[in-house]
């Protein structure tokens, strides 16, 4: 009979994992379950619900660190940070809009396990750049910690990087400690209207190659821009390229004005402030503009920015697609018709490097396709050996990332 274990302490997590090892009975790891549809479908009979390991255990704003149980709601952390004018610099996305559930339900453990990073990733780094240390129970049934609570630390292997983005396949996190940053005093977004394809990528590159410390830059083709809740964007009647600038007041005004001048050659210019700017970047972060229609498969492609317009063209040539670019072009979100295969999408990425992840598709598709970029040869075997070093009996989220891992 399927059981959901809901441990309240690390010792109880340990008991559950050790039992799972002794019974050779795999566990599906969940927090609040918002990302359950991410990755390959799981066949684990029992569930390890980590949502009771919740609460902020350490927050020292002047040290720029926060520690919490993995089940702590992201929303709770964001409230605590906002009270001190701080933020999670890597701006993790919320899967609510794409997966069709309410927003604000995810946990911090899920954020790190999936290495979720939003539009500010190009300036501030990814989730993996912020995890300073963790405690966990490995699939061997050992309590293992790594890292610490300080940013400068090279003591031992950086296992924090490994558990970030491991989708719970190596260890069940029981505590995470991460770096936070002051929130910007002011944010503005410069919009460029009408640039498309290669020109849009050039505009974003020009912004990135300026000394104006761009926090994020994204490009929405006309049909995606038309869906925005921000009037300046949806009413543009064409493609919109956006550049976000953050910092102290006088600096933001200065840089915005310099960027307006520098980008004027790419199209008409507008500026978003306050609420409009925040709404726009939330739409980009959560890919919510691609949520409908719900039968579309959603892909997330990380590629070299300069190649990204060609990759988008190849996708469009292969069938019915809506897409937009984040990360100065380097992140492509694509909603493709169900007729697309994983091979078609990965062929579009081409030979110059990058990877594609199937973020949303029905379970049978995700079971049959390679959801994450396939790894073959020596790299594939190495990943399998790394998995085995943490979880030799494959009791933690087996197969979530790759068959056999």
């Amino acid at each position, binding site marked *: 009979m399927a*059981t*959901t*274990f*809901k441990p*309240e302490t690390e010792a109880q997590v340990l*008991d559950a994992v050790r*039992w799972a*090892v002794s019974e050779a009975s795999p566990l599906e790891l969940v927090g609040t379950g918002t990302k359950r549809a991410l990755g390959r479908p799981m066949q684990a009979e029992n569930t390890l*619900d980590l949502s009771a390991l919740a609460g902020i255990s350490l927050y020292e704003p*002047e*040290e720029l660190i926060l520690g919490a149980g993995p089940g702590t709601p992201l929303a709770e952390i964001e409230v605590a940070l906002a009270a001190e004018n701080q933020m999670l610099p890597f701006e993790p996305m919320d899967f609510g809009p794409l997966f069709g559930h309410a927003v604000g339900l995810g946990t911090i453990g899920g954020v790190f396990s999936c*290495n979720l990073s939003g539009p500010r990733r190009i300036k501030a780094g*990814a989730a*993996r750049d912020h995890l300073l240390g963790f405690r966990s129970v490995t699939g*061997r*049934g*050992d309590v*293992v*910690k790594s890292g*610490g*609570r*300080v940013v*400068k*630390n*090279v*003591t*031992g*292997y*950086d*296992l*924090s*990087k*490994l558990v*970030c*983005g491991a989708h719970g396949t190596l260890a069940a996190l029981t505590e995470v400690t991460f770096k936070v940053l*002051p929130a910007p*005093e002011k944010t503005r977004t410069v919009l460029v209207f009408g640039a498309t394809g290669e020109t849009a990528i050039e505009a974003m590159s020009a912004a*990135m*190659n300026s*000394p104006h*410390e761009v926090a994020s830059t994204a490009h929405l083709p006309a049909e995606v821009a038309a869906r925005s809740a921000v009037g300046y964007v949806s009413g543009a009647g064409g493609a919109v390229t956006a550049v976000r600038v953050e*910092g*102290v007041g*006088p600096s933001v005004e200065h840089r915005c004005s310099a960027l307006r001048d520098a980008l004027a050659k790419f199209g008409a210019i507008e500026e978003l402030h306050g609420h409009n700017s925040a709404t726009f970047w939330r739409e980009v972060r959560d890919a919510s503009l691609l949520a409908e229609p719900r039968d579309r498969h959603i892909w997330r492609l990380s590629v*070299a*920015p*300069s190649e990204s317009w060609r990759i988008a063209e190849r996708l469009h040539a292969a069938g019915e697609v809506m897409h937009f670019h984040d*990360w100065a072009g*380097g*992140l492509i979100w694509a909603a493709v018709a169900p007729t697309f295969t994983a091979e078609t999408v990965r062929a579009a990425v081409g030979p110059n*490097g990058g990877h594609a992840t199937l973020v949303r598709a029905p379970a049978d598709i995700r079971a049959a396709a390679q959801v*994450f*970029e396939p790894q073959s040869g*020596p*790299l594939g075997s*190495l990943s399998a*050996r*790394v*998995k085995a070093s943490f979880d030799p*009996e494959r009791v933690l989220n087996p197969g979530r990332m790759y068959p056999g891992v």
Partner: protein
Amino acid sequence: MRMPEPDRDVMAQRAAIIENLRAIAPNGVIAEDDEMRVYESDGLSAYRTLPMVVVLPETTAQVAAILKYCGEAGIKVVPRGAGTSLSGGALPLADGVLLGLGKFNRVLDIDYDNRTVTAQPGVTNLAITHAVQDQGFYYAPDPSSQIACSIGGNIAENSGGVHSLKYGLTTNNVLGIEFVTIDGEVIRIGGKHLDAEGYDLLGLLTGSEGLLGVITEVTVRILQKPSTARAVLVGFEKSEQAGTCVAAVIGAGIIPGGMEMMDNPAINAAEDFINCGYPRDAGALLIVELDGPQVEVDYLIERVREIAEANGATSLRVSQNEAERDAFWAGRKAAFPAVGRISPDYYCMDGTIPRAKLPEILSRMSEWSEEYGLKVANVFHAGDGNLHPLILYDANKPGELEKTEEFGSRILLACVELGGVLTGEHGVGVEKRDLMGAMFNEEDLNQQQRVKCAFDPDGLLNPGKVFPELHRCAELGRMHIHKGQMPFPDIPRF
């Protein structure tokens, strides 16, 4: 420091090993003692060992062939970049091949559209910046050895620098690598795109101190140089006040490009050496550098000035031009040689503490300084809590090195006790190897070694570094939980 016992069987094969390596890298084998002497130590020069043989390959194919041969023959390999490690990461083994990457010295690709540089691992840190500075770009991590240290070594050690508070460590600035495993497999991870596919092996390899693989190519991100930088030089009567000021600057939401602190002995050593205009009577000195657009820098400089004054600054100067800013930094940058001038030898430590614990660690250090009769000068990456106490000693006095090492160990153990770590940016190497137990218990260390086993099951890559005790992989892999042995867990369930 005890290193693994040299394998006599391997050493007996030395002549044949040299021949086999010559067959792989005809122009790259050094086997004469005199010529190998330069490789006998790295930046931690207290430890020296002549390697069995040195090999300097020129191509990835040669590296792969060398590692495959050594892997199959059971020969230990110590990888070496520029040899500037301060923790003995490149200390040779008497029964090991020293694999130097010095001939991998070419920048391969500069890509301004994607803001990346791809280089061979032997290229120096500073050469990357030099390759792109005419377009206004630079490579952000700036360890103080940047003129000499190699980018491959930076990845092996996850090097930091003065600007890492704002711009991150090496790990935050590397996008891709090519590396070779001990089986001779060539593996590429990452590239010009962001974030790993699958497990983040790039993040794992960064800072792994040459124990997992040999890096043969590196892709890093480059940044546009800030248009302006200005520095504030602030003197305080007590280091506690300087510490409080640092916390207040960050508490105000300001992340300076650099925030460095020096204590009174370091201030005076620097002043004696280059006469840089530091206040000799100050108990502590802060250099706070703001960078960005001029309007931002001018605005933040004023805020830092207000914060410093509110925290009891006894002197305060703001740089008015580049020459003055350079002068503010000159003393800090010369701190190590300056200390070297007033003492026959010095030992540079590298712990990190939560910033708030600064007064406590400083008072403990001055207590121990008296106890051991050894002077200490402190330079400190104040923004991120990374301490560099310099213990002054004389290696020619019998027993003084041992006393210094004991003093140093006590400082590092105190860092851990106060919530910090053994090493912030110099690495564990051989130097801090035997202190690892202070931070990690056996289960933690065993798991790290299991990861090592996934890459190098026979423990041939850089053995004797990082881990205080070496276990066989078969023993580490054994499961202690057996079928049907564990009770159904008595925990909340649904």
